[in-house]
């Protein structure tokens, strides 16, 4: 049943397919939609990677990975390039995805128009009629109030010139990676009971104004551990005196770079840190 919804979602890129979400052995908001989509995609020979805000070692990621290791008997990995199925919350891995991989997103609120139009009947009609003026009103309000488009995550996108889609709360830094991605991208919202998808090599455009173009911003620092200039960074407060460091949010990418000998300003030598 979920596979049928997935097929429909792939056939109509960006369209939210309703499905009968099941009870999962975890609370809503912890990835019930992602878990169902992952479970529907896994084959015995798959290799699974689970990340939460880019990290492989947070509670949610570890629990979901162990859950599938025990119940589905699949191999697991922390390496992006070794995985065939990647379940993610709020990030797209820095390592470019390849053909044959599946990226499964956990989605809290799939409806991009939700906070502008509370009625589900009306938002569905707006999608059906491509009545998307309201989406730009939201961006207009951002500029009017903050001088620039201040939406920094869950930044609305238009899929193949048709459906406006919520890319789940990924930072807008990741938005360009949605477009023309060789991997299949699936989105599952458990509580809201919606599945949507981006087939490989789908054109995805972030909404903007001509005089305020889309800007995939990030913190203006290199990673303190691996020195990467091109990855999305987390800010970590290190003391009570205003000390802070910026580190890659993608732990696998960061570790891979350090193993390759790259070093940031605050990094211990890699061999030392490993022991």
């Amino acid at each position: 049943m979920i596979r049928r919804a997935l097929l429909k979602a792939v056939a109509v890129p960006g369209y939210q397919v309703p499905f009968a979400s099941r009870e999962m052995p975890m609370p809503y908001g912890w990835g019930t939609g992602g878990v169902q989509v992952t479970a529907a995609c896994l084959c015995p020979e798959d290799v699974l990677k689970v990340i939460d805000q880019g990290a492989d070692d947070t509670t949610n990621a570890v629990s979901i990975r162990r859950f599938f290791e025990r119940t589905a008997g699949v191999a697991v990995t922390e390496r992006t390039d070794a995985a065939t199925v990647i379940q993610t919350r709020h990030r797209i891995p820095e390592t470019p995805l390849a053909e044959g991989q599946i990226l499964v997103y956990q989605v809290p609120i799939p409806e991009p128009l939700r906070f502008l139009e509370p009625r589900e009947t009306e938002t569905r009609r707006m999608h059906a009629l491509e009545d998307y003026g309201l989406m730009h009103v939201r961006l207009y309000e951002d500029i009017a109030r903050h001088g620039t488009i201040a939406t920094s995550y869950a930044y609305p996108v238009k899929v193949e010139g048709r459906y406006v889609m919520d890319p789940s709360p990924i930072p807008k830094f990741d938005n360009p990676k949605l477009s023309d991605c060789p991997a299949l991208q699936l989105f599952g919202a458990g509580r809201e009971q919606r599945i949507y998808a981006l087939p490989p090599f789908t054109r995805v455009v972030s909404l903007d104004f001509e005089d305020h173009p889309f800007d995939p911003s990030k913190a203006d620092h290199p990673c303190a551990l691996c020195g990467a200039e091109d990855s999305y960074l987390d800010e970590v407060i290190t003391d009570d005196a205003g000390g802070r460091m910026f580190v890659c949010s993608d732990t696998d990418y960061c570790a891979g770079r350090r193993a390759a000998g790259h070093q940031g300003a605050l990094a211990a030598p890699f061999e030392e840190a490993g022991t």
Partner: protein
Amino acid sequence: MTAPERAFEEGAGVSDRPLLQVRGLAKTYGARIGCADVSFDLWPGEVMGIVGESGSGKSTLLNCLAGHLAPDRGEVIFDTRGHGPRDTVTMPEPERRMLSRTDWAFVHQNPRDGLRMGVSAGGNVGERLMAVGARHYGDIRATALDWMGRVEIEAARIDDRPSAFSGGMQQRLQIARNLVTGPRLVFMDEPTGGLDVSVQARLLDLLRGLVRRMGLSAIVVTHDLAVVRLLADRLMVMKSGHVVEQGLTDQVLDDPQHGYTQLLVSSVLQV
């Protein structure tokens, strides 16, 4: 000068066929009659008033004309820009929505129904522009400022939300929001209801100016005879869902023929 004004001054807005033709329109709510057997023509640049007591079917009729309600019988033929006269009742929903975003405007009695209260005044005015494809922030904002000036709202309040506006200002903002795409037909449902008399007078003055300057056609539903006397060229009197009398405004008001119209006209307090 905007395109519709220019068109009007050059006389291009004057056409040899009616803008809106209504034929045998009827809407029932179960056994009760909403409105029945309504037929009329509305010509370009003409303002028509619909008066009648509460429950006489005025608002039902207006909503049927504007596509908010589906009538049970009858035709509403609108002279579209691109494709000539089209029946808006049988027209596909996307086309009807496009009409209601471009060529039509609907001014609600309560501005809260017609405005987005959580969105700034500028965003409210800009919404229709963005809905028809405007994607330049600076241009949208400039148009919004221009329109706020035309309806006499200070430019400094462009980023305030309508909830911070007075009732009269909200109503004027609603009018600006509706007229910004240069519509040809405006539906107004009691535009001055709920406003005090001095604000009403100012709003009517503004409306009359805009309607005349832009060469708009309008259908104004009201129970206030003073409003139709000022705004409307022609008048239709409704009772129990039926049109009981129609004609030129002054003719109907000064020489009412039907018993109900006589009652209506004599009910107005002379101060």
